[in-house]
């Protein structure tokens, strides 16, 4: 904010002078609208009742004074002067319905703009004059402060716990494979049975005749398999002879 001289406390300055002329110091104004507003205030009437023509004359006179003093005048002040001169002529000359917007409307808009700026300027002053926190009213000087403590709320329940332990135990224990007791004909039993039944049987007899009776298909399969292996073993020992006429054909057994 370096160099900003127009501060709160000098807000009312520059104050309107008694004369309807103001001391020429263009540097005091924040643009032509600001200058116009200050000039308008010297009319000492409500802005809605001010004379636009008088205001135009005030402004043009002010700029003329500045010129005679050979002050450098920023272009926007001159643009405003030219526009105001045009407005004045429009207001004084007979109405030309072709011209849109009409000079009266332009004058009204200028007045509205000045009102608006004035309203904001006064509003600003009223704001600044309020009881301001840290200047007129004060918050607690040394508040203890409020704290937020983050705390984890754990969702894990007992089942999670024992399930986890179960997993660990399952991982750690050596796997123990237990095969269910199944109804089978062991090879020993099959050898015993086949050698007993084949006896001195010299006729070729299909292997199924040597199988024990059973309703259990699992057992029958097991008996067939073990009896087949038994015949092979007995054939190796030279106790039986085997014959099969073709692949997948019935297998025949007889005493050797």
């Amino acid at each position: 904010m370096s160099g900003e001289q127009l501060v709160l406390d000098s807000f009312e300055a520059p104050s309107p002078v008694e004369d309807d002329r103001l001391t020429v110091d263009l540097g005091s104004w924040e643009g032509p609208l600001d200058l116009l507003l200050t000039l308008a205030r010297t009319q000492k009437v409500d802005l809605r009742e001010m004379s636009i023509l008088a205001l135009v004359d005030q402004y043009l006179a002010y700029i003329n004074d500045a010129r005679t003093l050979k002050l450098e005048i920023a272009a926007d002040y001159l643009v405003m002067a030219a526009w105001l001169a045009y407005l004045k002529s429009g207001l004084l000359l007979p109405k030309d319905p072709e011209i849109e917007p009409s000079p009266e409307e332009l004058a009204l808009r200028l007045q509205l703009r000045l009102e608006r700026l004035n309203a904001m300027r006064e509003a600003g002053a009223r704001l600044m004059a309020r009881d301001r926190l840290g200047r007129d009213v004060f918050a607690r000087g040394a508040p203890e402060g409020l704290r937020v403590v983050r705390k984890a709320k754990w969702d894990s329940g007992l089942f999670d716990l024992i399930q986890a332990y179960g997993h660990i135990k399952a991982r750690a224990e050596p796997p123990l494979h237990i095969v269910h007791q199944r109804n089978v004909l062991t090879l020993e039993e099959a050898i015993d049975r086949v050698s007993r039944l084949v006896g001195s049987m010299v006729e070729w007899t299909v292997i199924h005749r040597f199988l024990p009776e059973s309703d259990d298909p699992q057992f029958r399969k097991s008996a067939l398999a073990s009896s087949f292996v038994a015949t092979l073993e007995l054939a190796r020992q030279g106790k039986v002879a085997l014959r099969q006429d073709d692949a997948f054909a019935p297998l025949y057994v007889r005493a050797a």
Partner: protein
Amino acid sequence: MTEMMIPDPTQDDTRAVEATLFAATEPLSVQDIAAYVGPDVDIKAALQSLAALYANRGINLVDRGGKWHFQTAGDLAHILRREREESRKLSRAGIETLAIIAYHEPVSRAEIESIRGVQISKGTLDVLMEAGWVRPAGRRETPGRPLTFATTPAFLAHFGLENRRDLPGIDDLRAAGLLDPVDLAFDALDLQGGDDQDTPDLESDDESA
């Protein structure tokens, strides 16, 4: 006694809200307070009760845009006003810009410039934002999508306003049509006589002038 007219929260609830607001380093909303005192406390009733209790005391409980805080009573300013000079003196441009934003928000930079008749120098909005009083308030869905500005809860707190309706004279200004949206294009025509710029031909408003 105003306390008699409002629901009387339990003494403990009131104390809890009171302590929370005292300990806080910044203004708190009802929700903020609830996070500390718990959901079962009728915070609004407690706030009303406390505000009434403190109304005539050296410190007051005030509502600033839905955020509550304790502050010293305004009439004691002469005792407490700090000797040290105000560290932040707003420039005239700053004050006017702040007033325009507060009374018109959300308002674009071009609209502010139109009302003031000069361009805003770079620092003006920065200073207001740095003070925590003004914030960008989104872009307007018009050509160019200009950024708009609005005031903050800190603005309300600093200037002792309960809400924007408390802005001095805002109802009168609105009734007089002085807060109506600015007709930028038309205003530009007025000032420029057809030039294509929307503000008078300035480099900037020189606030060091």
